[in-house]
């Protein structure tokens, strides 16, 4: 009997202590101490958390690729993991950024809480919608023991975006802003039941650096070192169209992704849980395009996308990657303001075009009779062009685009409304080649060079990114060059050994065609290190820094031609030879022509005077031609003649190179 009493007492004690422990555990969860809760749960098989953690660990969910994608874990050299997300609000465990298992266990613990977190006014279930969804799929939560919460805010969000498809938005590259030199990408959540015209009501997800007042140098440094915070923002597409197509005059490409309904839902859930947090932003690696790719990737069953990106992430490369993975369902083109203007001009005669320009310059009143002499339909076309001129000028002059209309604009529009006929839709054709169909962005070249009186020598070169003026224009802006990190080695001095020849860090050329309306200057910039052979046994490595400012005119010769002229300022730093920099001033004129889709040529004359002790003067004439043999292979010929008027030494050089894009 005594024995039985003891046994009963013991059972009771165990039961109470276990119920005490369960209460204590619930208290830990309630107060948000999830790390302590998960540790205690492992010793308390009465709590459902024990079962869930055990199940999850038995299944090794913390090693699951999907869990890593949801948490944005990347493995590092020693096999451990770190999440790329930098906002502490994103992690439930104290060690969550570096510990996938602790984070998973703590996440499970937090799902029992109906207390809002200290960051967002949301419970863990409602804050981390995709995580809950996925873990529920894996562990099949018992709804009695872990009741699902209603999450009305997420439901509103889901209803608001009303997702039917996901589209990747690519506003094309644009030379006059560091954030857009390589182009940019954002995601659009396409609404159900929308048409081509009403798609501007879709929401876009943008990942951007939260750059505030920083400008110039500090902006550049912060962008390179990850000192900016990058965050997603959600905006209606009409405001992005306004920004890209109108303000910045960049054509927009829309790549609708081929995803299943459940994948689309998944992206919406994951975007919702990512949007309040942040990442450290790096211009070249962890940038807008990279993080949008990781977001899309989270909906895939395996990582299709970001594993391909080591080093640089160039927006157009992400488009190529979605193409490689057969993820492109449909592509649409949205022309920019300047593309529209150029198209409207083509529809008008020369007289009508000059009338539109005169109306812009001298006002409606002075040219009213000329305008009214035209048929009503042509009047409408002239006024439609005139309004776009006014808008372009407004943006150009003020660098912003307010939503208001000026008195002048109103009187033009009033006159237009009185014509009482609708404008014909513009129907601007989509360019033949899409940006993802252009050549790949890295280039490897083999060159053979023959200079006068010398045996020929070879050079190999590798350029990291992105497009050169003579590279095939298909899919690229033909009058814009952006070359980044171009390393050249040659055997010029000794046929049997390769030596450093040149390292060009950056080489930008922007040929902006001018006319009565478009007045942006053309400019060039290049910098790097170059080895100059002085005599047979003597060579110097110099650092150079060249800037040019100029003008470009576009002609319709062949496919199209650009005529340009530049004033050049060059600075060479040759510490071994001179104790001050060698400054040079010169000029360049030339013509760049797309003969057809595969053949380009460039003819250029250049002269330069340097203030070195000899006051060297150079004149140079060069002719280059590039023939695209396929999308990623091209053959280039360059002939150059340089004369030095100080030393009277002429040099002729012929360079043949085979280029592989990869």
């Amino acid at each position, binding site marked *: 009997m005594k024995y039985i009493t003891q046994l009963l007492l013991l059972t009771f004690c165990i039961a109470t202590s276990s119920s005490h422990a369960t209460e204590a555990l619930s208290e830990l969860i309630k107060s948000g101490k999830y790390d302590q809760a998960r540790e205690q749960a492992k010793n308390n098989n009465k709590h459902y958390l024990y079962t869930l953690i055990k199940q999850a660990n038995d299944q090794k969910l913390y090693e699951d690729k999907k869990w890593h994608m949801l948490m944005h874990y990347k493995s590092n050299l020693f096999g451990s993991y770190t999440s790329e997300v930098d*906002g502490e609000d994103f992690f439930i465990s104290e060690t969550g950024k570096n510990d996938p298992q602790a984070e998973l266990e703590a996440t499970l613990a937090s799902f029992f809480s109906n207390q809002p977190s*200290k*960051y967002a006014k949301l419970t863990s279930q409602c804050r981390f919608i995709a995580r809950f969804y996925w873990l529920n799929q894996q562990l099949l939560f018992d709804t009695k023991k872990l009741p699902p919460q209603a999450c009305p*805010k997420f439901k*509103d*969000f889901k*209803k*608001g*975006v009303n997702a039917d498809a996901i589209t990747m938005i690519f506003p094309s590259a644009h030379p*006059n*802003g560091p*954030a857009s030199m390589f182009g940019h990408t954002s995601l659009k959540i396409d609404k159900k039941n929308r*048409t081509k*015209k009403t798609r*501007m*009501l879709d*929401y876009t997800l943008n990942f*951007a*650096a*939260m*750059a*505030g*007042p*920083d*400008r*110039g*140098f500090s*902006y*550049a440094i912060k*962008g390179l070192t990850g*000192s900016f915070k990058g*965050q997603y*923002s*959600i*905006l*209606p597409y*009409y*405001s992005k169209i*306004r920004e890209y197509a109108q303000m910045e005059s960049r054509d927009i490409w829309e790549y609708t992704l081929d995803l299943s309904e459940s994948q689309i839902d998944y992206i919406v859930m994951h975007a919702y849980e990512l949007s309040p947090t*942040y990442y450290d932003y790096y211009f070249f690696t962890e940038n*807008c395009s990279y993080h949008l790719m990781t977001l899309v990737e989270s909906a895939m069953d395996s990582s299709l996308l970001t594993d391909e990106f080591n080093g640089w992430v160039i927006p157009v490369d992400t488009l190529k990657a979605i193409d490689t993975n057969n993820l492109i369902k449909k592509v649409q083109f949205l022309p920019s303001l300047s593309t529209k203007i150029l198209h409207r001009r083509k529809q008008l005669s020369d007289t009508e075009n000059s009338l539109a320009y005169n109306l812009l310059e001298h006002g409606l009143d002075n040219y009213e009779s000329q305008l009214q002499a035209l048929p009503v339909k042509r009047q*409408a076309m002239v006024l439609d062009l005139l309004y776009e001129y006014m808008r372009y000028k407004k943006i150009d002059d003020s660098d912003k685009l*307010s939503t*208001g*209309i*000026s*008195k002048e604009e109103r009187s033009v*529009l*009033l006159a*237009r*409304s009185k014509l*009482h006929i*609708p*404008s014909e839709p513009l129907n601007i054709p989509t360019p033949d080649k899409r940006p993802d169909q252009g050549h790949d962005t890295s280039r490897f070249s083999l060159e053979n060079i023959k200079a006068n009186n010398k045996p020929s020598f070879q050079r190999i070169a590798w350029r990291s990114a992105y497009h050169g003026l003579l590279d095939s224009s298909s899919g690229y802006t033909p009058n814009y060059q952006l070359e980044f990190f171009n390393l050249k080695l040659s055997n010029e001095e000794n046929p049997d050994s390769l030596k450093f020849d040149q390292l060009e860090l*950056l080489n930008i050329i922007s040929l902006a065609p001018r006319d009565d309306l478009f007045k942006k200057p053309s400019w060039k910039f290049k*910098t790097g290190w170059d080895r100059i052979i002085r005599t047979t046994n003597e060579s110097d490595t110099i*650092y150079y820094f060249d*800037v040019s400012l100029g003008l470009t005119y576009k002609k319709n010769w062949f496919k199209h031609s650009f005529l340009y002229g530049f004033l050049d300022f060059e600075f060479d*730093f040759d510490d071994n030879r001179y104790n001050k*920099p060698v400054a040079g001033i010169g000029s360049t004129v030339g013509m760049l022509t797309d003969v057809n889709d595969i053949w380009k040529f460039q003819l250029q004359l250049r002269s330069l005077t340097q203030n070195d002790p000899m006051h060297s003067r150079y004149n140079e004439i060069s002719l280059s031609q590039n023939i695209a043999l396929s999308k990623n292979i091209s053959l280039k010929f360059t002939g150059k003649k340089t004369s030095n008027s100080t030393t009277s030494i002429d040099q002729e050089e012929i360079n043949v190179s085979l280029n592989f894009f990869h």
Partner: protein
Amino acid sequence: MKKIVCIIAFSSLAFASQPAMSSDTGPGCGIGKHLLSGESGIGANVAAWFLNHAILPQSSSQTSGILGCDTTKQVSNDQQKEKFVASNMDSLSVDMAQGEGDHLTTLASLMGVEEKDHAKFFELTQTNYGTIFGNTETDADMVLSTLNKEMAMSPNLATYVR
């Protein structure tokens, strides 16, 4: 040293234009708010502003919108029509004067005008352009109320007035 000067000069040159900015930097965000979470009232707001703008380095707008700021609040169907008109006054003005366009089509769909009546809607806005955009001071509310008045008088479009 000269090289460094040059690199700096270049960087300022090439990076001088407007950087990408977040468009939803509402008030009451940033680290200051984060540190003072749970506090409310003018005192706390002033303190949050002070933390954001004066004490924490580079936090004035760089960190706005981060930590506890709700970017998803952009997504809502309430007052979408009003917001759309206010954000696109100039484009709507052009489309109305020209009697067609994507912005005007979108407005028609936001107002519930069925596709078969779009041409009528476009015609009405073109005819009444001078009234709808009465002067350069016209705002979104005025545009919508004039539009509703004109539509109420049209036999085909009166049904869409709410």
